[in-house]
Structure formats: C-alpha cells, structure tokens
C-alpha cells in the first residue's frame, strides 16, 4: 500500500524512540521521588490539594472528550466532509484519555485500591464515582468504534448506534467532570451550573488543536502528501471550525473573567485580580495561546496555510494547558477557613516531580500515537479507494 504517512517510516521510529525515552525518564524520575518522599514530592498541601497533575489529567481528559465530540460530526451527524478525520479523532481520543489516566494514577494515594473500592462502594452521590464509570464507558465505546472502523464498517446500523452511544458517553463523561468542580458551592470560583458547557467548548477547541497537529505530523507537516479528501478538509471546513471554536472559547473565558472581577466575593474576585491576572504566565497563555491563534485563523488567507494551522494548534496547546491549570489551582488559592494561619493567597507552583508527570503524560501520547500511525491507517475513510491512493482534488467524499 502506498502511503505518504511519515510516521510509518524511520521518522516515526525516531519520534517513537525519543518519546519513549522522555516517557520512561518522566515516569522514572517521578516514581523515584515518590518512593523516597511519598507525596511530599509534590508541592500540594492542605490548601491547594489538587495541583498540576490533576490539571494535566483534566487537560487530557477534556482534549479526549473534545476529539470524541469532533468524531461525532461525521459519525453521528453525518457531515461527510469530516469522514477523513473520524478515525484519527477516535484514536487520539482513546490514547489521550489513557495518558491522562496514567497521570491521575500517579497522583492518587491508592490507585489500585480504586479498582475495587469504587464498584463496591457504589457511592452514586459522588461525581467522582460517576467520573470513573463514565470515562470507563467512554474508553470502551471508543475502542469498540475504532474496531468497527478497522473493519471498514462505516455505515451499518450498529456502527451508527455505537457512534451515538459513544457521543452520549462523551457528553456525560466530560459534563460530569465539569460538575466535579461546578457543584462545589463551598468553592465559589468553580460553582457554576454552566460549567459543563464551558468544558465542552474548551474541550473541543483542545481536541481540534490535537487533531490538526497530529494530522499534520503524520504527513511530515506537508499537506501535499495527504489524501485528497483529507487535504480538502484541512483547506476548507476544518480551519473555519477551528477559528469558531477558539472564538467561543475566548468569549467564554472573558465572560468568566468579567463576572469574576465584578463579583465582590473575595473567593472569586481576588482569584481573578490577584492570582490569575497577576500571573504573567496567564497573560502570555491567554493572549498568545487563545487570542493570537484566533486572530491568525480569522484571516482567510492565513488560515489555509499549513504552517499557520500547525503553529496555532501548538499555541492552543499551551493556552488551554494554562487555562486548565489556573482553573484548578485558582479554585483553591483563597484559604478556606484557616484564619491567620494562612494569611495570604496560597502559593503553589508545581514541583519537579509534578512536572515530570506532565511530561510523562505528554510523551505517552506521542508513543501511543506513533504506534497507532504505524499499525493502523488512521486516515482511512469511506471515500478512500481500496488502494488508499489519492483521489483527484475536488472529489466529493461519499458515504
């Protein structure tokens, strides 16, 4: 089979080795420090109990959910133009979620205990219980759907049903993840019934960035090597959807920021004014990682250029990673009922161990990604001729 996918060749192998090294090093460093110092290797404390490993997990889980929702565009809503990215979306959603879970597993006090304590406890009142159930279902559906695509079954009734079930699973899983924070009335910075919508939208933006980046990566950042239908999508509908998502994301962040700054309650107001907006990192991430790519992609001439698309995807990676971090930590920095023992906004910065877990997770995505590109044809779509050869540009994808 002729294939222009560079991940199948030596470039892919090189990336595989490199990311494997980073992953093992990240894991090794964290495991060593945690074996020696326990969770004292983290900089979390009684005030900021959830630090960067949790925000990394959240970032990955939501990117995964975003990809799952994007996959529904062709698979559930039958927008056939998007078929060429469907399989890669599903695959990326799966591996990014797995990597997020790996980071979470390193954060918990007793990961393996969870395997029996969650099902035996059946604590249906806890959103965290449902997170376990729903993300497990999500993984299962993603796997099932992927297996159908491997069998080149794109349109049977069962496939559609699995697609719909998976779509609902993703909506429930990420919506519930939002409620883990959004239902905490004692944490006013998070308490917000519309939080699932914020998570959906920012999650799809995150997923879109991942899709753009990894699709280009598969073809050595050369759009000319992509199959025709995929190329057409990357030149046409997809960047438009990308810019729309970034616009909505920016709008949503602004609404949260303005509401927060206007509110008198210090648990909301001070978080914005004296913590989030006082951080240069946040400013760089927001203006450079969300607004700048939005403005770049707004231009019809720029948004079709591969270099601009890839650059925007990378910027959005950074922008939304910071957004998750400041969201998670921001909800905890105003000390809760500590008197003058905690006389100022809590200081938290991730330790080297916490950073190494973030790198471990990111590297794990690359490892699994290259393996996936090598083992499967992730650009497969119903429009492809069996040989996988490119169709002439302009050919309409048909189901």
């Amino acid at each position, binding site marked *: 089979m002729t294939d222009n996918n560079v991940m199948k060749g030596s470039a892919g192998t090189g990336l595989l080795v490199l990311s494997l090294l980073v992953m093992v090093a990240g894991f090794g460093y964290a495991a060593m420090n945690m074996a020696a110092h326990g969770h004292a290797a983290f900089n979390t404390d009684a005030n900021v109990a959830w630090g960067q490993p949790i925000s990394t997990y959240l970032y990955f889980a939501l990117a995964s959910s975003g990809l799952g929702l994007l996959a529904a565009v062709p698979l559930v809503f039958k927008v056939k133009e998007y078929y060429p990215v469907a399989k890669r979306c599903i695959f990326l959603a799966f591996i990014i979620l797995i990597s997020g879970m790996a980071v979470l597993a390193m954060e*918990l006090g007793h990961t393996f205990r969870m395997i029996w304590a969650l099902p035996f406890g059946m604590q249906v*009142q806890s959103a965290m219980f449902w997170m376990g159930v729903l993300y497990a279902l999500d993984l299962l559906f993603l796997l099932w759907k992927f297996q159908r695509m491997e069998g080149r079954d794109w349109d049977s009734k069962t496939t559609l049903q699995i697609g719909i079930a998976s779509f609902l699973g993703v909506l429930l899983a990420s919506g519930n993840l939002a409620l883990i924070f959004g239902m905490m009335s004692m944490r006013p910075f998070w308490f917000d019934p519309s939080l699932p919508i914020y998570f959906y939208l920012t999650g799809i933006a995150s997923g879109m960035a991942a899709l753009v980046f990894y699709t280009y990566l598969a073809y050595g950042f050369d759009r000319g090597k992509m199959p025709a239908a995929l190329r057409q999508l990357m030149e046409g509908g997809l960047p438009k959807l990308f810019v729309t998502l970034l616009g909505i994301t920016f709008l949503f962040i602004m609404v949260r920021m303005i509401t927060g700054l206007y509110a008198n309650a210090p648990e909301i107001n001070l978080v914005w004014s004296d913590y989030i907006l006082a951080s240069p990192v946040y400013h760089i991430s927001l203006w450079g990682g969300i607004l700048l790519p939005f403005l770049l992609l707004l231009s019809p001439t720029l948004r079709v250029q591969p270099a601009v698309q890839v650059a925007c995807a990378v910027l959005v990676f950074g922008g939304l990673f910071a957004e998750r971090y400041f969201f998670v930590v921001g909800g905890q920095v105003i000390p809760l009922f500590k*008197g003058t023992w905690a006389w100022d906004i809590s200081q938290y910065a991730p330790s080297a161990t916490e950073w190494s877990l973030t790198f471990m997770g990111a590297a794990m995505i690359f490892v699994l990604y290259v393996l996936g590109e090598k083992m499967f044809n992730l650009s497969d779509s119903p429009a492809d001729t069996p040989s996988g050869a490119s169709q002439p540009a302009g050919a309409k994808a048909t189901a």
Partner: protein
Amino acid sequence: MAKWGMVIDLDKCTGCQACTTACSMENNTLPGENWQDVLYYHEGEYPSAQMKWLPRPCMQCEEPSCVHVCPTRATYKDDEAGGIVFIDWNKCIGCKYCMIACPYGVRFYADEQPLVEPDLKAAFPGEDGQLWSPPYQGPQEDWSRGIGIQPKGVVSKCTFCHHKVSQAPAGTPDLDEDDPDLKEYVPACVRTCPPKARYFGDLDNPESNVNKLIGNKRGVRLKDETGNRPQVYYLGAGANIPAFQRRQRS
C-alpha cells in the same frame, strides 16, 4: 443512640491551644496537621481593630459534603456512633475530593511536605504501613474509623475521640470531665480545656446540658449558609468569620 454534639463558648475560650495540643497527643497527629486547631482572625483596623479566635474541630456535619463527594464511601457518617463522620483508611484512595468539599478545612492528607520542621516523618520513619511511627503511640487503633496513626496516601481528620466517647454508658446525656465516673470518656480537647469553654453531650437528649446551652445562650453554627449543619455549636460574641482579606507582611 446518642447524637454527639460539641458546644464551644467563645466568651470563655482564651485561645490557649491546650485543646490542639491535647488532640495531637491523643491522636498522634503530625505537627501542623491539626485535627483540632484554634484559628485566629484579625478584623478591622485601628482604632476598632479586633482579634478573634475560634477553636475548630471537625464539625461532624449533619449534611456532610465530604461524605457526599467521597467516591468510595471511605468517608461515612455513622449514626450508630453518634453521627460521627469517619474515614475508613482501608477504603480511602487519596483522591482528596473531600478536602476540596469540606467548607471547614478540617481534613489532612499529611502525606505532604512537613508543615513544621524538623520533619518528624523523617525522624521516625513509618513502619507497618504507618505514615510515621513515633516512639509513643496511643493504644487505640481502628483503621476502619480513621483512628490511630494514619497510613500513607489517605486523608485523616478529627473523630470526636470516638475511641473514648464510645465507651461511655449508653444514655449518658453529657460527658462532663468534672464527673469522675465519666472523665475517661470525654474527648481530649474538651477534657483539657482550662477555662471549661467546651462541652460535649447528646443533642438528641432533651435533658442534656449541651441542648440547654444552645437554647439558652443562643448557640450558632459557623458558616451555616453552606447547609452542612454542623454538630458543633458556638456561644458568645465573635462566632462569625470575617471575609478573606489579603495581608501584606511588613
């Protein structure tokens, strides 16, 4: 079954921290990981500046948000044990969601950087699954109720000295440290309080002293707007918490 409640009279409390010390001795908590603490608040400015303080155990809430969020039922409210909220250390997975959800900040992971130097976890390394193993240890241990020295990777908190109060004769309305027959069953913080600012008794017993104090001296619960409905009541002036304010250290 009793429903244990605590009453703390802020007009009597001197903020001496004897309760905090007694608690950490009784329960072998690490320095700084204070199941019972006294919180100090500065409010206002000269010439009307005030300093207030509030002893703070776990409130053993009637609607405990920590229990609602715990994914494994490791945290549970035991109505058979007077409504005390326990943590089963055999079930806790260390997700720390309860620490997020408790409005009163009374939960401790302890498997973290030391709050007070020197690090006693390094001085007395943990044995047999304990997070640290000090030479003196309380004789009681019950991991299913979070009593004893906590293991790694779990959350701990005040147990209302269940290992003591559960030994009291059934039907006792109040556990008063001045009664020689009862003093061994009184929670450590209550028993040690020099000005007798703390009272412990059965909120379900109409005859109990704690009920009379709450009724006659206008007992209030802190942060009542959270809906957690503590089983700990405060008497006297100053039973409220000023909003958080930034303070620059000069």
